[in-house]
């Protein structure tokens, strides 16, 4: 006879509590350990757990497929859901994560075409130094670059740049091109590649290696004499001084020349191609094709070196007496609290992590960052005292600007003298300090809202094409020189005068948070939800106004790239 029927009612109250908490994701570490101990002892508890976990699975599957709620605050999440692949289809993307990412980028790209920059005029005293905005159109992106140099007349590409139908010229070094179909091309310079679509390109000159996952099968590469159709995995093509060489490393390719039958070249096969006459079999390995794996290990070495340089910079910066806060979000240092590295160490200024999750930072595998994707994510801190100026600087990776306002660093109550540093959904950075919270807002229609302030905007510094790229942003509130400046990657992009009526000289922070704002004064969800959909790798707040040179140096040193 079974002494332990598996009905839930035979769980002790304690066990039932543990089970509920585990299902809800709210179980405490201690209870979790106790639960596991009990599970080891008691097969019946394990069986019940499995029943409940299956119930959980069925509910999740059946309910969410059926209908979505129309609660307005949930609607604020909609832009995220639209581009998420359906759960049932997700595994397919496992073949080619890159293809999935590319497909997402492609959808974004389409959306972006309808997303114009609003033609609003900047406020008076607005001075802009922004260049033209990168376009989000295209069907490929520049992947990793290794010692890449560019022809004098050609485009100076950067990692992450979007590519469209254009001729990609590389003078020397190695570059990766990631096509949105999922194919990756490693190009060794000097090279000239004509990009035609997400599925097609021509190699006019240079050596390339093409890696094609199953999802991108059918990718076409034209050599001057021959069309090559990839039937899966990996091949190389070299076009140098009129000589064409092709070699298959894995899988197979189809070769097609005008007027000829299609022929297949299998793994290990190598051919010399000619404009006329039959292809000539050659020895495999005779031509050195660019090697993405070798590049991968080189990249890892480069990352490690850069990261080491950064730690030197970090330790030096932490000694700067002008620092109020310095968070670097390193995983081994995240235990619910982010230490404020500014010296002398003051644990009172450590940041409390709420819901934000440690993720890869700027140096994958070496440095972590915090992600604020979940609507409740934030890092909280209380900074007492009065200050004469502010400089905010951060390394951020923005995935999308989903919110009307996307928080970088925000004082809770936004009272007189307190700052708000954030990004508007059109990509403009905003720094503001409450001038007088007891005087009517000059822009308020009802004349009763007591928020006398002025927002200092930068020109748009972000659009969807920059999604996932790390960037250094900084803003300076400088009452002494009566100006507010914004910087991206060490360069000033705008500066605006602080008009006498908006002047405020005694600054405070008090309770504040990074990555979100918990006290919106309107209930409207588009206004109220301000978490930054992205990552923060470093945040520094200074109690002084840094100058242009200092911001540029801060960027250079914290970037730590020795290239």
């Amino acid at each position, binding site marked *: 006879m079974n002494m332990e029927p598996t009905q839930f009612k035979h769980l002790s109250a304690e066990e039932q509590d543990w089970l509920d908490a585990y299902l809800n994701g709210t179980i405490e570490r201690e209870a979790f350990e106790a639960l596991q101990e009990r599970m080891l002892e008691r097969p019946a508890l394990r069986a019940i757990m499995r029943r*409940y976990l299956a119930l959980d699975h069925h*509910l*999740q599957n059946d309910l969410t497929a059926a209908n979505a709620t129309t609660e307005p605050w949930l609607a604020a999440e909609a832009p995220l859901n639209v581009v998420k692949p359906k759960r049932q289809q997700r595994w397919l993307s496992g073949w080619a994560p890159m293809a999935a990412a590319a497909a997402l980028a492609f959808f974004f790209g389409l959306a972006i075409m309808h997303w114009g920059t609003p033609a609003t005029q900047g406020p008076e005293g607005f001075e802009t130094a922004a260049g033209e905005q990168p376009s989000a159109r295209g069907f490929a992106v520049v992947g990793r670059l290794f010692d890449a140099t560019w022809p004098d007349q050609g485009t100076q590409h950067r990692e992450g740049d979007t590519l469209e139908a254009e001729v990609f010229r590389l003078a020397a070094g190695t570059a990766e091109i990631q096509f949105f179909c999922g194919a990756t091309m490693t190009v060794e310079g000097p090279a000239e590649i004509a990009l035609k679509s997400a599925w097609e390109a021509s190699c006019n000159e240079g050596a390339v290696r093409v890696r094609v996952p199953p999802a991108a099968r059918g990718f076409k590469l034209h050599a001057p004499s021959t069309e090559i159709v990839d039937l899966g995995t990996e091949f190389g093509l070299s076009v140098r001084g009129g000589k064409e060489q092709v070699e298959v490393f894995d899988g197979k390719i189809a070769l097609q020349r005008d007027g000829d039958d299609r022929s297949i070249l299998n793994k290990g096969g190598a051919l010399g191609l000619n404009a006329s006459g039959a292809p000539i079999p050659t020895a495999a390995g005779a031509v050195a094709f660019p090697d993405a794996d070798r590049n991968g290990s080189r990249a890892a070495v480069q990352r490690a070196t850069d990261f080491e340089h950064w730690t030197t910079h970090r330790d030096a910066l932490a000694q700067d007496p002008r620092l109020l806060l310095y968070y670097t979000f390193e995983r081994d240092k995240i235990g619910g609290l982010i230490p404020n590295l500014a010296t002398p160490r003051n644990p009172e200024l450590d940041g409390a992590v709420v819901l934000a999750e440690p993720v890869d930072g700027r140096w994958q595998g070496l440095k972590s960052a915090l992600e604020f994707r979940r609507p409740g994510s934030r890092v909280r801190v209380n900074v007492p005292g009065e200050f004469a100026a502010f400089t905010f600087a951060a390394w951020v990776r923005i995935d999308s600007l989903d919110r009307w306002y996307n928080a970088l660093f925000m004082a809770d109550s936004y009272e007189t003298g307190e700052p708000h540093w954030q990004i508007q959904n059109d990509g403009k950075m905003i720094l503001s300090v409450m001038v007088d919270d007891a005087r009517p807002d000059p822009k308020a229609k009802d004349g009763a809202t007591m928020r006398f302030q002025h927002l200092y905007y930068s020109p748009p510094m972000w659009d969807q094409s920059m999604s996932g790229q790390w960037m250094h942003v900084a803003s300076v509130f400088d009452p002494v020189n009566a100006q507010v400046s914004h910087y991206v990657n060490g360069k000033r992009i705008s500066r605006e005068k602080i008009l006498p009526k908006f002047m405020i000289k005694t600054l405070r922070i008090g309770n504040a948070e990074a990555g979100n704002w918990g006290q919106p004064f309107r209930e409207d969800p588009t206004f109220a939800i301000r978490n930054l959909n992205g990552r923060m790798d470093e945040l520094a707040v200074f109690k002084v106004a840094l100058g242009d040179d200092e911001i540029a140096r801060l960027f250079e040193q914290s970037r730590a790239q020795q290239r």
Partner: protein
Amino acid sequence: MTEHEPAPNPQEDARYEVFVKKFAHFEADVRRFVRSLLPNWTDADEVVQQTAIVMWRKFDQYDPETHFMKWACVIARFEALAYRRKMARDRLVFREDVLELMADEGVEEIDQRDAEHAALESCMSDLPEKSRQLLTLAYTQGVKVKELAEEAGSSAEAFYMRLNRLRRQLMTCVESKLQQPGHA
């Protein structure tokens, strides 16, 4: 080195088709199995995805005599363990010995799970609309109960209590249905 091609790699395409069909058929079961081993959906998704990749890579080693789902569970178990080791230590993931027990015993219960699912569907249809709505909200992907409760002007504790009670009610209902004649 070259050969004429009648059609683009038909065998490979056919094999791929077979695999996709089979996997699609069992995907929900695989996901359910993996979910019983890992703390949340995101983790389970990762592992199911990885499992699919590994299965496709090893598909030529698959013995058609074995049950596809059993084979999937063997690989998913391995992938879940690998994932567990990879994850930060401070996450609330089952210890290796617990995870292994859950996996090994879970493999034997696949049919039972299907019966429970059928019973649950019938129980759900008897559920009052309000309860159903609460469940739907709680199980919407990406929604965090804490925020949900805050938005609804209730405390997270109160929300969880209702949710826990509902789940227990459903479980009672499922068990009573399974004990009725006609059910194994």
